[in-house]
Each structure stands twice: as structure tokens, then as C-alpha cells.
């Protein structure tokens, strides 16, 4: 690793849920020319208040028939360094007008999800008569019905692997997906091929020689305080392996 810039990351982004506390600016009057000067007046009394703060516009108190000009409102709010990022509550038409101007409806934690406009009831899906055909890259899980003995190596290429017996010492089971062992794991289990970081290993009796996920591995001596002899799930958290006892 010569410089940080040359360190290739495996993925460009990650999607995670997060909870934030946001101020809600409840609009009591739809007229922009009334709202903005009143805000400016407030700021003169409390300099720095709300400066550059993201806020959510509360629409509950507005008359459903009189939506404000949201495009104009957004521009005016930004001119006084307030960043509106979405709306909450309000009538369907008002929300739709805000969404058209670039302010999506947000759901307050614990509140019901605002129904997207138009608020027609969601159509009840027709009962599916036949299962749709699986996508073309779908691979059936490989199932091994017997013990895997020393020196044997089983590779579930491009799919998950289920072993119904023991994986004995000196045996090796490999899957590009997850590895499930409904017996004792006493040999090696390798999941996730070269890059599937979310692959997992499950075993009813966890006594492995080695476990590996997507190239990260742990040998028996490196298992630390893993719950040996138990029902265990192995997964990858960042660059370290986690051993969860399932029973």
C-alpha cells in the first residue's frame, strides 16, 4: 500500500438506515411573502438560529385547497440560509405539490407512512397461479446427503451448499454462497467464494479446522472464544469474523 489513494475499496458506497433529529417548520400560512419576512424577523432577534439547518416543512395546518408556491418558498428559505429537505403530514394535494418542487414526504418515526399521491388504495395483487420462472443465473443449492470424509473436497460452484452429515477432519466444503452443515463441522468450511462478503457458515456442532468467508479466514487456533461444540453462525463484520451461538 503506497498511498491511501491507491487502496482500492471493494464497494463505492453502503446503504444503511439512520435516525436523525430534525426541526419541523410548521407552516400556518400558505403565503411565501408572509412566511419568509416573519422568519427573517425571528433571526434578527436570535442571530445564528437555524443558520444552515436542515428543516422539514410541516404541512398539517395548511388548507388543502391552497398549497403554497413551494418552488418560490424553497428559494426564499435558502436565501436566509435555511435548507428545507422534505415535508411531513398535510393533505395529499399539498404534499404532491411539495414533491413536485423537490421536497419528498418524510415519515416521522412511529407515524404512518404517508400514502403516495394519488391516494388510491393499493390494488390487491392477483393470486399468482404459477411460480415465475427463476432468473437465468439462478443456481439450485447443492445438497450432500452423507458425511464428507478426510481428503474429500466438495465445491458448490455458484450456489449454496447444504451438507446433511458430518464434515470430518481433513475434509473441505466450499461454496460460492452460504455453507449449511446439519452435522458436525470438524474439517474446513469455505463460504462466499472470492468476494461474497455477506456469505455465512452455519453448523450444528462447530469444531472446525478452518473457516473462511470471501478470503478472510480463521484457523482453529485463531478462533479465540468462539462457541466451540455449539450451533454456530459465522459471518463477516468488516474485516473480522463473528461467531454467533444460535443454540
Amino acid at each position, binding site marked *: 500500500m503506497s498511498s491511501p489513494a491507491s487502496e482500492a475499496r471493494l464497494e463505492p458506497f453502503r446503504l444503511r438506515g439512520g435516525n436523525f433529529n430534525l426541526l419541523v417548520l410548521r407552516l400556518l400560512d400558505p403565503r411565501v411573502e408572509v412566511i419568509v419576512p416573519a422568519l427573517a424577523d425571528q433571526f434578527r432577534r436570535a442571530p445564528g438560529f437555524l443558520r444552515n439547518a436542515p428543516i422539514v416543512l410541516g404541512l398539517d395546518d395548511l388548507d388543502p385547497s391552497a398549497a403554497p408556491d413551494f418552488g418560490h418558498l424553497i428559494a426564499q428559505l435558502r436565501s436566509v440560509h435555511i435548507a428545507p429537505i422534505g415535508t411531513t403530514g398535510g393533505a395529499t394535494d399539498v404534499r404532491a405539490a411539495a414533491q413536485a418542487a423537490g421536497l419528498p414526504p418524510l415519515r416521522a418515526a412511529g407515524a404512518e407512512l404517508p400514502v403516495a399521491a394519488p391516494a388510491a388504495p393499493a390494488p390487491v395483487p392477483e393470486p399468482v397461479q404459477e411460480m415465475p420462472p427463476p432468473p437465468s443465473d439462478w443456481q439450485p443449492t447443492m445438497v450432500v446427503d452423507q*458425511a464428507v*470424509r*478426510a*481428503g*474429500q473436497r466438495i465445491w458448490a460452484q455458484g450456489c449454496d451448499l447444504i451438507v446433511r*452429515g*458430518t464434515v*470430518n*477432519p*481433513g*475434509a473441505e466444503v466450499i461454496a460460492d454462497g452460504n455453507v449449511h452443515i446439519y452435522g458436525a463441522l*470438524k474439517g474446513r468450511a469455505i463460504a462466499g467464494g472470492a468476494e461474497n462478503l455477506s456469505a455465512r457458515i452455519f453448523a450444528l456442532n462447530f469444531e472446525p479446522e478452518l473457516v473462511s468467508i470471501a478470503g478472510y479466514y480463521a484457523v482453529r487456533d485463531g478462533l479465540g472464544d468462539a462457541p466451540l461444540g455449539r450451533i454456530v453462525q459465522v459471518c463477516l463484520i468488516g474485516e473480522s469474523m463473528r461467531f454467533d451461538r444460535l443454540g
Partner: protein
Amino acid sequence: MAQVIVVTSGKGGVGKTTSSAAFATGLAQAGKKTVVIDFDVGLRNLDLIMGVERRVVFDIVNVISGEAKLSQALIRDKRVDTLSILPASQTRDKDALTKEGVATVIEELSKDFDYILCDSPAGIEKGALLALYFADQAIVVTNPEVSSVRDSDRILGVLQSRSKRAEEKKDPVKEHLLVTRYDPARVEKGEMLKLEDIQEILRIPLLGVVPESESVLKASNTGNPVIMDAESSAGQAYKDAVARFLGEERPMRFTDAEKKGFLSRLFGGRAA
């Protein structure tokens, strides 16, 4: 049609040849026409254990290469007249064996014998693979020791994938576990693997447990298969195993440590 039985283990020194000699003798004593073949070409031992080393003229390699007839190479045992031995060559190596050659020998022996025992060499190379290839049944000899169990496990995998029965997708080779050199006292002290531990890994039916016994070494050195020594615990254990193999019910013996009496503790006597 004769039954072909391979005596195998993967690991060396666990008692394959001793067990082959004892088992073949036991089957013959039970009235079965039995031949035992030494597949350990280059390191032949079976003829010594059977006490026929001075009567070897031709061997299996001579037969395969057409230098001798099968009847010339077979040695008839002097103690049990239903028993014959087909020795290995001392001067050649295992490359002298071919699958076709072995097939011909076994086919010819099938006409005259009930049981054909194949004494496998150690390892998983050509000699061992040929010894197990034609097997209908396998006796897997294992010592109560982790490396032996591991190697037996390996050889079971080979039996299930590379035998003729596996290749032709017939019924699998019938597997039997024979635990040898078992010392219950050392098992109790935790120095040896327990029978249950061995079975937990190998998961094949147990044919017998042969206790560690000084009579085995004596038997080998005098060229008398240990099963002929009815006094010894090992001899009795082999007798039991042969009886079970032939379908008799016999309780397992020699699996628990004997409570030493006062006198034997005093003089440090060991089981014969």
C-alpha cells in the same frame, strides 16, 4: 461368485497384514475356500506372517506378466487346507500391477474360491487403489489414534468414489470397522481414543475390537496367524470378528479395562 474383501487402512503399521492373515485363516477354518493376496508389491510381508516364505516360487507379478500360471503361484496352507496364499513380488514395484492383470487374476480365482482377501499396502497410491478396486466388502483396520482414524476416513472416501462398484454405480462396497491394538487401560487414562470417538468419525459398522497383545508379535515372528492362538485375547477377538462377518451374533469383548487383581498388580502382569 466369490466375495472380494479388501483389508485396508490408509496408514501403515496398524495391522493390515496381521488382520488379513488372521481373517483369511479364520474364514478357511470355518470351511470357506479362501485365498489371500498380498498387494504390497516390493514390500512383501504376508508370506512371512503366514509362515510360507520358504515356499514362494512365483508371485502375482509373474502371473500378471504371463511368466507363471496362477496354479503355480498359489501356495496351499499346510495348517488349513481350504486356505491359499498368493504372494507379492519382492523385487518389482507396484507399477508392475495393472488393472486388467488384477482383474484377470481375480476373475480366475473367483471360480475356485468363496472369499478373495486383498491385503492392501499402506497409502492411497496405485497398489492400494488396485487392492480396493474390485472389492465387494472392505475391512477398514484402525488404531485408536487420531492419525490412523483420519487415514481410515480418507480411505473410506476413496472406497466410495474410486472402487469398481462406485464407478459402475452398483451397491456400495460394504464397509466393516476393525479396531486393532486397543488398550482399554490406556483408553481409560485418556492416552488412546475411545471406541465411541472412532465410531463417531468413521460411522461404519463395528466388526471387532482386537486388544493390544504381546501374542501378536510372537505370532508374526513364528509365522503362525494369531487367530490360531486360541489362548490369546487377540486370537479370540479375531475369531469373534470372523464369526460376526459370517453373520453370527457375538458380544464385544476386550473393550473394557480389566480390574487388576492383587497378584497381577504386584507382579505387573499383562494380558497375554
